[in-house]
C-alpha cells in the first residue's frame, strides 16, 4: 500500500513542475559544418541588432503568467533591453541586461518592491540571448545528423547542440552554479540570418520555465 502512496505523491509532485518539452531535430540529413562555421552561423554572434515582439509564458511551479514583451537585442554589444507588458499593453517593467549586469529602467510601483525581479529576469534573458556562448576552444563531436560543442565547468558540463542545418538547438548547463536548458525551435530566415521563433528555457533548480514565441522580427540598421 505504501508503494501506491509514494506513486501518487510522485504523480502529484510531477504535476507541479513545469515540463521540459521534447525537441525534434531533423534526422534526414548529415551535419557537416566545421566549428568555425557553426560559430559564425549563429544569429547571436553575427553582430546584428534585432527588434523582437514576443509572447511570453512564465511558469513557476504550477503557476502560469502570460506576458507580452518587446526586446531590442544588440548582439554586437551584447545587450538586451526588454519591455514587458500585460495583455492590455501596459508596461510592467523595462529592463536593460548586459553580460554581467542589469539595470531596471522602470517598473510599476508594485514591482519595484519585488526583491530579485530584475536579477531573475535578467539571468534568464542572459542565458537565452547573451551568454554563455560556444567557443572555438570547446570540444567538438559529430553525431551524424547533429553536432555538439561542449566544455567542462565546475561540477558538470556546458554543451551546445546543433542540428544538420547548423542551427543552434539546445544549450544545456549543468554544474555547481546552475542546472538549466534552453531549446531553440522553429528557425526562420530573416535578412539572411536564421532566428528561432520559439524558445523554451527550463531552470530545473528553481522549477521555472520560460517560453517565448517571437511574433515579429525586425532588423535595425
Amino acid at each position, binding site marked *: 500500500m505504501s508503494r501506491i502512496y509514494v506513486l501518487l505523491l510522485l504523480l502529484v509532485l510531477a504535476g507541479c513542475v513545469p515540463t521540459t518539452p521534447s525537441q525534434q531535430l531533423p534526422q534526414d540529413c548529415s551535419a557537416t559544418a566545421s566549428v568555425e562555421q557553426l560559430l559564425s552561423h549563429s544569429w547571436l554572434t553575427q553582430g546584428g541588432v534585432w527588434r523582437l515582439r514576443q509572447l511570453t509564458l512564465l511558469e513557476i511551479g504550477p503557476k502560469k503568467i502570460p506576458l507580452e514583451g518587446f526586446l531590442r537585442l544588440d548582439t554586437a554589444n551584447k545587450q538586451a533591453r526588454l519591455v514587458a507588458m500585460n495583455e492590455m499593453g501596459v508596461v510592467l517593467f523595462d529592463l536593460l541586461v548586459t553580460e554581467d549586469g542589469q539595470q531596471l529602467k522602470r517598473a510599476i510601483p*508594485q514591482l519595484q518592491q519585488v526583491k530579485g525581479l530584475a536579477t531573475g529576469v535578467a539571468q534568464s534573458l542572459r542565458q537565452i540571448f547573451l551568454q554563455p556562448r560556444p567557443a572555438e576552444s570547446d570540444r567538438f563531436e559529430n553525431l551524424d545528423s547533429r553536432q555538439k560543442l561542449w566544455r567542462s565547468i565546475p561540477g558538470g558540463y556546458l554543451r551546445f547542440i546543433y542540428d544538420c542545418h547548423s542551427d543552434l538547438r539546445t544549450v544545456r548547463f549543468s554544474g555547481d552554479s546552475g542546472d538549466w536548458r534552453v531549446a531553440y525551435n522553429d528557425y526562420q530566415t530573416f535578412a539572411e540570418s536564421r532566428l528561432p521563433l520559439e524558445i523554451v528555457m527550463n531552470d530545473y533548480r528553481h522549477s521555472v520555465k520560460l517560453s517565448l514565441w517571437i511574433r515579429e522580427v525586425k532588423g535595425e540598421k
Partner: protein
Amino acid sequence: MDCLIFLLKDNIGRTMKCFLLTCLFFMIPVLGSADELSNLLGELKTAAATTETLSSPFVQEKYLDIFDEKLLSQGQFVYRKPDQLRWELLSPVASGFILQGDKGERWNSLSHERESFSVKNDPVMGMIARQLLAWAQVDLDWLQQRYRMELVTSEPVILKLYPLDPGEAGFIHHLQVRFSPDNSHVTEVLMVEQGGDSTLIRFTAVKINATLPPNAFQVPNF
C-alpha cells in the same frame, strides 16, 4: 514569486479598470464643453436608455516611446444591457474576460487557463462592475468625481480626461476620447501614460442594438 504573481494580476486588474472605463464610453453617445455638457446630459441619458447592445471590433496600437515602435493588436468588444460584457483580444494572443452580472471568467490561450471570478469575492472585479453600472446608468456624477474633463474640439467631439485619483494619475497622464461625426458612438480612445508611452484603441465598426450571437458571452474554445 507568489508576491510577483499577485502583483502582476493586481496590476492587470487595475489596467482593466482603466480600459473598461474608457471603452464604456460606448454607452455615452455625446459629451460637450463645460457649458455644452450640461445641455447634453439629458441627451446622454436618453440615448443611453435606448442602447440595448453594443459591439465592435477594435485595433489597439501600443506606442513604446523608448523604441519609437508601434505594436498592433486586434480584438472584439461586446456589451448587452444591463450587465453583460465581453472584452477580447484576438491577436497576437487570444485572451480576455466575460462579465455576467456579478460573475465572470477570464481566459488566456497562452497559459490555456480559464479563471472564474466573482465581483463579491474579487475587489478588482467588484470595482469593474461598479464602473460598468455607472456607465450603463449614465452616472455622470461618478465620472465627474473621477476625472477633470476638457473639450478639445466639438466637431468631431474630442474630450480629454485627467484622472483625479492619485493612484491612477501616477500611472495615466490623460485619456482622450474621440466620437463619431454624428456623436452616436466613440471611435477612438487614447490613453497617454506618464512615461510617454500610449495606447490607442480604434473601434472600427460599431454596431448599436444589433442582435448578438448566442455565444457572445461564452468563453471561447482554444
